[in-house]
């Protein structure tokens, strides 16, 4: 079996399979959450909490009130750097938009590749910094589980292999592309069953927290 055939499988059935598992897993996750339900609040509320809920969905993407530097700035700086870098790379690299177009029929303008490249480097450095923090801070060492490292690797490998493929580093391009797409597929398959689900569920969490606080008259 040559690498061309492997790449073909990865781009065809492999992609369909992993996307299928991903979509099934995310829907299952949402069902697992919403089917549990929630008791109606019988207290006389100060407001419906709807506006507060939506505000919290947005506001928790910002640093907490004015004191970023009094908290460990490390997590904030590299946390933002990683997420922004990752989003730019996923959404604005021309080949990624082509994939989206072939899968969904949707297209949008891309950013120049050298620009995306900078964001990829930022994301990679930030991920390594966050790993270093996990490995060295007593607090983080205590909280970190095996899954945290797994999820780190699942995110890091697609970024790194994509970067290497683009720059034709170390391995032949076809190999790197195969590794890149395969690692993305692995990420998709494990996504719904790990803490990676936060990418979806954080909106639900922020909604509930913001709404419940809003009913009491507090913007959380």
């Amino acid at each position, binding site marked *: 079996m040559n690498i061309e055939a492997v790449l073909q499988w990865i781009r065809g059935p492999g992609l369909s399979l992993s996307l299928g598992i991903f979509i099934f897993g995310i829907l299952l996750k949402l069902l697992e*959450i919403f089917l549990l339900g929630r008791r109606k609040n019988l207290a006389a509320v100060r407001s419906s909490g709807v506006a507060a809920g939506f505000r919290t969905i947005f506001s928790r993407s910002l640093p907490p009130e004015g004191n970023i530097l009094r908290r460990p700035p490390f997590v904030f700086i590299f946390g933002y750097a990683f997420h922004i870098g990752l989003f730019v790379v996923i959404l604005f690299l021309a080949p990624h938009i082509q994939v989206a177009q072939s899968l969904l029929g949707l297209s949008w303008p891309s950013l120049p590749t050298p620009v995306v490249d900078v964001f990829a480097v930022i994301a990679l450095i930030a991920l390594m910094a966050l790993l270093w923090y996990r490995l060295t801070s007593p607090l983080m060492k205590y909280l970190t589980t095996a899954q945290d490292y797994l999820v780190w690797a699942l995110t890091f490998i697609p970024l790194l292999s994509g970067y290497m493929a683009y720059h034709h580093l170390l391995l032949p391009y076809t190999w790197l592309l195969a590794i890149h797409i395969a690692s993305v597929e692995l990420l998709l398959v494990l996504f719904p069953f790990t803490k990676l689900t936060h990418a979806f569920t954080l909106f639900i969490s922020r909604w509930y927290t913001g709404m419940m606080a809003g009913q009491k008259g507090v913007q959380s």
Partner: protein
Amino acid sequence: MSKATLERGINALKEQIDAPTAAFFSSCVHCGLCAQACLFYTETCDPAKTPIHKLEPMRRLWEQEYTLGGRIRKWLGLAKPVTDGELARWSELVYQNCTLCGRCSMVCPVGNDITYMIRKMREGLSAAGHAPDGLIGATTRAVKLGSPMGVTLKALKAQAKHVKEDSGLDIPFDVEGAEYMVLLSSMEVINYPEYLQAIARIFDQTGKTWTISSQAFEATNSGIQIGTSDIAAELVQRVVDAAEKLKVQTVISPECGHAYTAIRWEGPNLIGRPFTFKVQHILEVLDELREQGLLRVEGVEDSRLTFHDPCQLVRRGGVIDPPRNLIKMVVDDFVEMKDHGKMNWCCGAGGGVSAIEEAAEIRLKAFNRKKKQLAKLKVDGLVTACANCRIQIEEGLEENDMDMPVIGLTEMLANHLVEEDTGGGTSS
């Protein structure tokens, strides 16, 4: 209460797990930021005190029972079951090292309301028999005697007599059709009887009718602190029955943080129906009277003062502006702590912590956070609106050789009432 067992604990926890809980556990990425928001972590640097870690047994139970992946792992024998010993170990983290202050819930980047879950976790621990003795005692006294500190109606009547002697004002008991029904915390009856007199004088000046029910005058609710909803419901029901019997319009929660959460926000949910009367914190009532121009004061405090926000009033209760509006009526030199209002730091003794003997050391350590805040301000005194915060702060200041009066806000306002309007007229 039937016998506490692991099985009952697990069942109680399962009953507590709802959609928000599942969303919260699904969203946590172990970033550690909640630790930095928790005074039990910041004052000890013990990673076990990270708020989300206090929920680890409950998280595993959720995963094993309510997710497909977790169920498969459990079926394959790969999941670590929650044990009785584990719950026993977690008791210290959940009861002694958390005041349910809610600060972690404000900073979590994925938006988890961690405090909401700790409240739930306590239901499981108490059903499993791992609630601390101090809270069990307080709860038992609350059920049997009507007060967690064993304060009887007789003791309250004795205080009422003192008020009459001091101010000439009657404390009205069981007056049907009064506008307000006043609740008190045992701590106020015993340690801060000035509150009762302040209320009497303020209502006298403003011409409002009020009463205290001899059936239900206790505002605190040990049931929600220990995490036993049926007991919490029973304690709420007493107040509801009294308020409905006396046909009052509004029940007033006293200067106590968790009492407000208990009756205002949890109360209707505990008894399973909306209230037929309004519930307000005393500061909300006073602020309304201020707005209506009925609360008339004279003179100002000549010292530099700050305000300590009781967590359950601000962050968990939404009473943020009233204390500030009221303080500014009688204080010229009012300064805020850097983190105040909904981002205040807890005193270190809320959520039942003050009732737990074994927590005496840790709560004074937690107080260091407040100490640092106060040291930066250079104030002459501190105003607050919770008897529990007040006693903790007084003890903490004493322990740290800091000489600073701690004043109840209602009492401070009463000291500034326009004199000729008070009925008794003999007050100092």
